[in-house]
C-alpha cells in the first residue's frame, strides 16, 4: 500500500478576475523508502501540491476536488486541529531557506526538544538525548556541544541539516521537501542530497522532493513526476523519465538542461514554453546601427582586460583609529587577462568574490589595490567622471535578478533609451526611438514592447530587456553576472543562445560569472575558479573540465550533478 496517496487533486485560487486553477487532476503516490521527485518550472503548481498535502494552502487557495490518503487514511477532510497534529508528527517538512526556518532566538536544543516533546511521549532528559542523537544522524560533528548553540552559529548547510533533524524528530512517515537545496552551494547540496537519500532508506520513510533542478532529480529520486502548468504530464522511474521521456514537454525540458560532459554549439530550442521569438533575420553588421562606431579610437591589440594584483576590502568594524579597524578581504591578489572576442568565465560558490571582481571592473566598487587595464588604460587611475564615461560606454553589465534590474516606474522605451541619450549616441528623438525598437526586435521581444512597463513581462523577457539596455551603448565588453540563475532552464537556454549569438555577431568580449559549472562549460572559452576571494586556477574551459589542476577545481567538478543516465539531446 502506498504511504501517501494523492488522488485527482484540484486546487483553485479564486480571485475577482476569475478562478485560477493552480493544480488540476494530479494523482501521485509515495511508497515507503522511496524518493519521489516533483519537477517543473516556476508556476507549474509543484509547491502548491506540497502545501495542500500538509494543509498549509494560503487562502484564498482551496482544494476544489480530490483526496489525500496517508496510509490508507483520508487526511484532506480533517479539521485544522487534527491537521496540525499530523504536521510534524506524521508528515515532516523541509523548506527551501534554512536561514529563515529556524528561530534565531532559541538554541537548537530548545527547538528540537520542544518538537520532540510535542509529538512523542518522552521525558525531557530522553528528548535531549534524542536531540543529540538526531544531530549525529544528520552528520553534525560534535553534537553534544553544538546542540547548545544558536542558529546563527551554524553555516547554511549545517542549518539545513538541523532543519532535516527537526523534520525527522517525531519519526514521520512521510517527508515533504520543498526545494531543500536551492539556497545552498553545490558542494553542500551534494552532501545534503546524499543525507536525504540515506535517511530515506534507513528509516524507511517516503519522501517527496519538490524541485526545479534536474540535477537534484537525477541524484536522489527513484521516481519522477513532471508538472506543466498545473497538470501532471508524465510520471515514471527516474531512469525512464531522464533517459527516454515520452511527453514532448519532458523532452524539451531535459534537452534544455546544460550538459556538463560536452560542449554544444547551441542549446536545442525548447518549444512548449513562452515563444522564443528567435525568428529574426541575421544581422547585416556593417550597415546596422549596432555595427557602427565600433572603432573605439585606440588600435590596441593586446588583451582587452588585464587585471593585476587586484584587492578588495570591505570594512567590517569601523573605528576612528586606523589600527582598530578590521576588514574582510573579498578579493585577494587576482590576476587574469581577457583577450578580445573571448568569453571568460568566473566560477565559484557564493561569497567567493566573483561578483566583486565584476563590480570593480564595471566601476561600481573602487579596488583597494591593484590595476584594471581596459584596452591598455588603467581604469583605477582615472579620476574624473567625464574621462570615465568614455570607458563606461564600452563596457556594460547584465545583472542577475531580472525583477530588480529594471526600474518599475519607467517604460521599456525610456529604460533602453537612457544610455543612448546619456552618451549622446543618437542625434534626434526619432532616431533614438527607432534604435530602441530595433534593439528590442533584435533581442526577440518585438517592437510593441517599447510602450509597456517592466512588470508586464516574464523573467526571461525582462532579461532580454536588460540585454537590450546593455547593448544600447554599443559596448565591446559585456559583463554578465549570473544572468540566468534566476530563470527556469528552458528560459535559460533561450537567453544563453541569445548571448552566444550576440557575442558572435558583434565580436563582443565577455566576462561571464556563474556558480553553475555546466553553464560555464557551454558558454566560456576560458575559466577562472574562485574560492574565498582567491583565483585558484585559470584554464581553457575544455582543459579545466577534462583535467583540472587545482584540488578545489577537482572537488567542484566531482560534485557537479552528472546526469549520466540522461539521454543526450
Amino acid at each position: 500500500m502506498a504511504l501517501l496517496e494523492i488522488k485527482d487533486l484540484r486546487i483553485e485560487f479564486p480571485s475577482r478576475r476569475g478562478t485560477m486553477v493552480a493544480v488540476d487532476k494530479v494523482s501521485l503516490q509515495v511508497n515507503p523508502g522511496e524518493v519521489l521527485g516533483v519537477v517543473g518550472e516556476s508556476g507549474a503548481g509543484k509547491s502548491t501540491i506540497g502545501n495542500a498535502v500538509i494543509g498549509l494552502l494560503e487562502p484564498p487557495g482551496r482544494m476544489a476536488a480530490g483526496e489525500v490518503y496517508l496510509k490508507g487514511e483520508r487526511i484532506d477532510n480533517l479539521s485544522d486541529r487534527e491537521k496540525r497534529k499530523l504536521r510534524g508528527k506524521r508528515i515532516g517538512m523541509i523548506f527551501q531557506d534554512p536561514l529563515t526556518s529556524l528561530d534565531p532566538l532559541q538554541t537548537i536544543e530548545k527547538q528540537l526538544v520542544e518538537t520532540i516533546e510535542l509529538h512523542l511521549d518522552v521525558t525531557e532528559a530522553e528528548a535531549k538525548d534524542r536531540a543529540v542523537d538526531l544531530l549525529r544522524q544528520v552528520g553534525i560533528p560534535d553534537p553534544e556541544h553544538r546542540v547548545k548553540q544558536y542558529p546563527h552559529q551554524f553555516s547554511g548547510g549545517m542549518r539545513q541539516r538541523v532543519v532535516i533533524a527537526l523534520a525527522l524528530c517525531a519519526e514521520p512517515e512521510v517527508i515533504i521537501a520543498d526545494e531543500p537545496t536551492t539556497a545552498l552551494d553545490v558542494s553542500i547540496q551534494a552532501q545534503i542530497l546524499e543525507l536525504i537519500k540515506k535517511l530515506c532508506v534507513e528509516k524507511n520513510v517516503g519522501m517527496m522532493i519538490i524541485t526545479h533542478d534536474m540535477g537534484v532529480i537525477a541524484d536522489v529520486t527513484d521516481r519522477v513526476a513532471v508538472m506543466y502548468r498545473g497538470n501532471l504530464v508524465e510520471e515514471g522511474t527516474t531512469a525512464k523519465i531522464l533517459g527516454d521521456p515520452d511527453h514532448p514537454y519532458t523532452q524539451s525540458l531535459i534537452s534544455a538542461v546544460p550538459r556538463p560532459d560536452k560542449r554544444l554549439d547551441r542549446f536545442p530550442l525548447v518549444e512548449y514554453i513562452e515563444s522564443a521569438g528567435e525568428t529574426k533575420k541575421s544581422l547585416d553588421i556593417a550597415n546596422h546601427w549596432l555595427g557602427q562606431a565600433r572603432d573605439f579610437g585606440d588600435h590596441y591589440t593586446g588583451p582587452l582586460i588585464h587585471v593585476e594584483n587586484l584587492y578588495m576590502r570591505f570594512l567590517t568594524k569601523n573605528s576612528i583609529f586606523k589600527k582598530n579597524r578590521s576588514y574582510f578581504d573579498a578579493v585577494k591578489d587576482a590576476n587574469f587577462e581577457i583577450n578580445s572576442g573571448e568569453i571568460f568565465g568566473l566560477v565559484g560558490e557564493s561569497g567567493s568574490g566573483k561578483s566583486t571582481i565584476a563590480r570593480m571592473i564595471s566601476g561600481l566598487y573602487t579596488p583597494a589595490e591593484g590595476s584594471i587595464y581596459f584596452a591598455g588604460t588603467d581604469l583605477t587611475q582615472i579620476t574624473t567622471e567625464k574621462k570615465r564615461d568614455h570607458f563606461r560606454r564600452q563596457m556594460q553589465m547584465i545583472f542577475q535578478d531580472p525583477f530588480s534590474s529594471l526600474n518599475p516606474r519607467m517604460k521599456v522605451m525610456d529604460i533602453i533609451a537612457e544610455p543612448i541619450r546619456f552618451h549622446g549616441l543618437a542625434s534626434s528623438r526619432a532616431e533614438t526611438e527607432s534604435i530602441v525598437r530595433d534593439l528590442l526586435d533584435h533581442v526577440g521581444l518585438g517592437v510593441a514592447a517599447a510602450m509597456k512597463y517592466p512588470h508586464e513581462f516574464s523573467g526571461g523577457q525582462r532579461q532580454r530587456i536588460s540585454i537590450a539596455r546593455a547593448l544600447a551603448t554599443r559596448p565591446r565588453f559585456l559583463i554578465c553576472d549570473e544572468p540566468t540563475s534566476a530563470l527556469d532552464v528552458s528560459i535559460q537556454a533561450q537567453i544563453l543562445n541569445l548571448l552566444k549569438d550576440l557575442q558572435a555577431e558583434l565580436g563582443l568580449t565577455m566576462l561571464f560569472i556563474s556558480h553553475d559549472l555546466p553553464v560555464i562549460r557551454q558558454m566560456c572559452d576560458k575559466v577562472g575558479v574562485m574560492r574565498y576571494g582567491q583565483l585558484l586556477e585559470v584554464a581553457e574551459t575544455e582543459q579545466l573540465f577534462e583535467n583540472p589542476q587545482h584540488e578545489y577545481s577537482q572537488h567542484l567538478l566531482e560534485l557537479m550533478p552528472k546526469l549520466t543516465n540522461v539521454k543526450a539531446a
Partner: protein
Amino acid sequence: MKQALKRFFDGDLWYSFSHSPVVILSAVITLLIILSAIFAPMIAPHNPFDLASIDIMDSNLPPAWNEFDGDMRFLLGTDDQGRDILSTILYGARISLLVGFASVAFSVVLGVGLGLISGYAGGRTDTFIMRIADVQLSFPAILIALLIDGVARGIFPRDLHDELAVYVLIFAIGISGWVQYARTVRGATMVEKGKEYVQAARVIGIRPGTILFRHILPNVTGPVLVIGTIHLALAIITEATLSFLGVGVPPTTPSLGTLIRIGNDYLFSGEWWISIFPGIALILLVLAVNLLGDWLRDALNPKLR
C-alpha cells in the same frame, strides 16, 4: 491617457475604493469641504471679512431654529461680533485647508529632499542629517511652532505680522513635520539604492543627482503619499490648536481654530453654537482625511491585499 484611465479603473486601488462605503463617504465629505471652501465667496450668505456688512446688533444670535431669537438670515447663528457662523466656517475652512496643504507640501519637499540625500549619500552626511532629525523629534511640534511664531512676532512689526501670520504658521507647522518624511524616504532610498536598476544606471554613467530624481524618487513616493494624507489632518489640527492658543491667524480673518477659541469664551454663558459648529466641521474634515489616509496606506500595501 485613455489607456491610463482604463488601467486605473481596472486596478486594485479602484476596486478596494469602490467596495468600501466608509472610504467613499470620507472621499465625498473631503471633496465637499474642499469645494465649498474654494467656492466660499459664491455660496456663503455673508462675507464675514467685510466689516461694512456686519452689524454688532446681530451679535451672539442663536441658530435659526431657536424659537426665541432665531434669525433666518443666520442659519447657524452669529458670533460676538455679529458674523454669520456658517459663512465664517466656510471662509475659515479656506484658511485651515490652505495652511494644511501648504505646510504638508513644505514638509514633503524638505523631508523627501533630505531623506533622499541622506539615504543615498550615507556615511557622514547621513549621520549629520539624521542627528538633526533626532534633535528635532525631541521637541513637540507645537513647541517648535510656538517658538517660531514668537520669533516672528519679535522680528516683524505688529501690523505686518497679522498679514504674514498665515505664512508664519505654514512655515512653523511645515518645519516641525519634515522628520517623518525624511526617515521614511531615507529607509526606502537605502533599499532602492541596493537594487540592480540603480547599479545599472551607475554602470551607464548616470550622475547621482539624476539617479536620485529619475530613478529613486518615483519608487519611494508611495509611503510619502500615505503619510501626507495623515499629516494633512494633523497639520489642520495643529493650526487649529495654535489658533486656539492665540498664536495663529488673527481674529479678523478667523480660521476654524480661531473661531473655536472665540466661542470658548462664550461657552459657559450659553452661546454654544460659536464653538460647536466649527468644531463639527473640523472633526468631519480631519476624520474624513484620516480615514482616506488609512485606507490608502492599506490599499497600497501589497501584503494586505
